[in-house]
């Protein structure tokens, strides 16, 4: 007995799980799972007590059912699409067999958008808005950081427009887009443009402000080194200002993307851009007994995608950041 215990102590590697390891597993996995379980229980418990005009508030179980429903709908829609193209092909083949010179028509399938389509639309819209915003915010932020005069000129404008809600911008954007974007065969839907521009107007600010701070805060010595080397303004910005400001720019970008994603849902509801926001709005208008459950699926999807987007930005930040020791979270 005593012999075995001493041998175990002298060869600690043979113990399959050392205590600190067990503790770290508990900390990394068990606590979050416990937290989620508690939340689900409270949710189910609370939901049972809330009766709305559309029936009982959905608990986790009902929401999970709706996830299944949405998946099934997606599958059915896919089957329909495949069938549509098969029919079209057969029809065209028949026509060509009868008359090789016949004009054949190829139409694309225009079924009702599935939940997955709506997610994709939302992602594309937010990406477009985010892109437009950064196209403006990063150069402006660079200028603001480099020139205090320019910053003083811009600052009142930044401060006034920064807190404006997307809902206030949307009517203006809608009117301007419909007045100026009058292409015959528009490449972008107007509703898409409205949402994207609204997103851009709202998620411009964090990147702009953080870029300004990042650029203005460059180590004086590095700026002096650049002056001694007589770097041209372009090389100065490319080789010194931009890399030095990258950490702050990315902090801004992450905040911007989170803001943009939040704003998008509201914008889509009002602009009727066929994304997640419209899905929520349509379900609300639809008012079936499943609606609340389906909206809840959308809520969770929105949250989850927001989380993934932030993690993606973090990955990109880690990739481009020169300071590998920095703790990014």
């Amino acid at each position: 007995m005593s012999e075995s215990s001493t041998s175990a102590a002298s060869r600690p590697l043979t113990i399959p799980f050392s205590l600190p390891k067990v503790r770290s597993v508990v900390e990394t996995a068990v606590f979050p799972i416990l937290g989620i379980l508690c939340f689900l229980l409270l949710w189910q418990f609370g939901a049972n007590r809330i009766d709305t005009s559309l029936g009982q508030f959905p608990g986790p179980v009902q929401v999970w059912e709706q996830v299944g429903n949405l998946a099934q709908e997606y599958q059915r829609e896919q089957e329909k699409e495949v069938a549509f193209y098969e029919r079209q092909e057969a029809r065209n083949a028949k026509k060509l067999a009868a008359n090789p010179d016949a004009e054949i028509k190829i139409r694309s399938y225009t079924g009702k958008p599935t939940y997955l389509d709506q997610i994709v639309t939302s992602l594309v819209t937010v990406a477009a808005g985010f892109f437009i915003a950064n196209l403006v915010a990063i150069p402006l932020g660079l200028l603001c950081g480099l020139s205090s005069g320019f910053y003083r000129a811009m600052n009142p404008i930044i401060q006034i427009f920064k807190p404006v809600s997307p809902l206030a911008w949307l009517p203006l954007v809608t009117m301007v887009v419909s007045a100026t974007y009058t292409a015959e065969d528009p490449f972008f839907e107007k509703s898409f443009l409205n949402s994207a521009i609204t997103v851009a107007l709202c998620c411009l600010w964090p990147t702009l402000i953080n870029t300004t701070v990042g650029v203005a805060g460059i180590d004086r010595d590095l700026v002096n080194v650049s002056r001694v080397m007589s770097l041209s303004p372009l090389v100065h910005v490319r080789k010194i200002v931009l890399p030095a400001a990258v950490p702050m720019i990315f902090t801004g970008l992450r905040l911007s993307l989170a803001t943009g994603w939040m704003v998008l849902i509201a914008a889509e509801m009002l602009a009727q851009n066929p994304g997640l926001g419209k899905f929520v709005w349509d379900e609300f208008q639809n008012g079936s007994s499943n609606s609340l459950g389906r909206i809840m699926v959308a809520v969770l999807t929105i949250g989850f995608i927001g989380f993934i987007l932030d993690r993606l930005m973090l990955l990109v930040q880690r990739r481009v950041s020169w300071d590998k020791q920095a703790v990014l979270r």
Partner: protein
Amino acid sequence: MSMSYLELSDVGIEFDTNGEKFRALRNVNLKIQQGEFVSLIGHSGCGKSTVLNIIAGLHQATEGGVILQGKEVSDPGPDRAVVFQNHSLMPWLTVRENVELAVNQVFKSTKSKAERRDWVLHNLALVNMEHALDKLPGEISGGMKQRVGIARCLAMQPRVLLMDEPFGALDALTRAQLQDSLMKIQAELGNTVVMITHDVDEAVLLSDRIVMMTNGPAATIGKVLSVELERPRDRLDLAEDPTFVHLRQQVLEFLYAKKHDEGAAARPSLEAVPAASKHDGDDHTEAA
């Protein structure tokens, strides 16, 4: 009167901080010959770094001016490269890229791509850093960083090499190594050097002349000391050399005796810390 290589004539500077005028320097006159090694020594806040920054063109003198080879200095430029105290390497560029940035800027029209590459390697070899070409500054020691900073300046082939307390942030052993390297390089290349230091031994060991500055505000040159010691110098031999000891004594006397009569009246709050161990990080921003 023969024209000197680098001349500071009646240089004075006044800073404007929130409407209040602060006079940092007055009547600074100094003539430096080509190939000469001059150090500026003085207490913290006496404006040594301001003198260096004026030579570099980073500050504009409000009176007088700096003339380098017959032309007045107005802007910063690579002909007056500066080694800063805290190395000031771009942390996102590797050792090689840091030197390359300077070389590509200075020799973009006079050297071919291959020549520039060799020139970068040559200068890093001068400071014994050719082994860490692809390391980032964050991955090498403080002494190594300062070596790279020196290589970057040497690579610009400056007409005057300006050094702002180049070894102030290093430990004593590393500092001694770098001082020896610098002496060797200067003997080889014949650079004209203006160096700021707090370290009396360093000043005597490295310099041809030591310029001692009075305490600010309105600091100026108090005394100039010629260091008549044979080169190459060896720190071990010099330690007991009577000339060395005497020179060292004279610098110490200037720094501390001065403090008691006029310095103490001007800046009573300055505490008496031995100059050799004194060092403050933001010396060159003192007056900004």
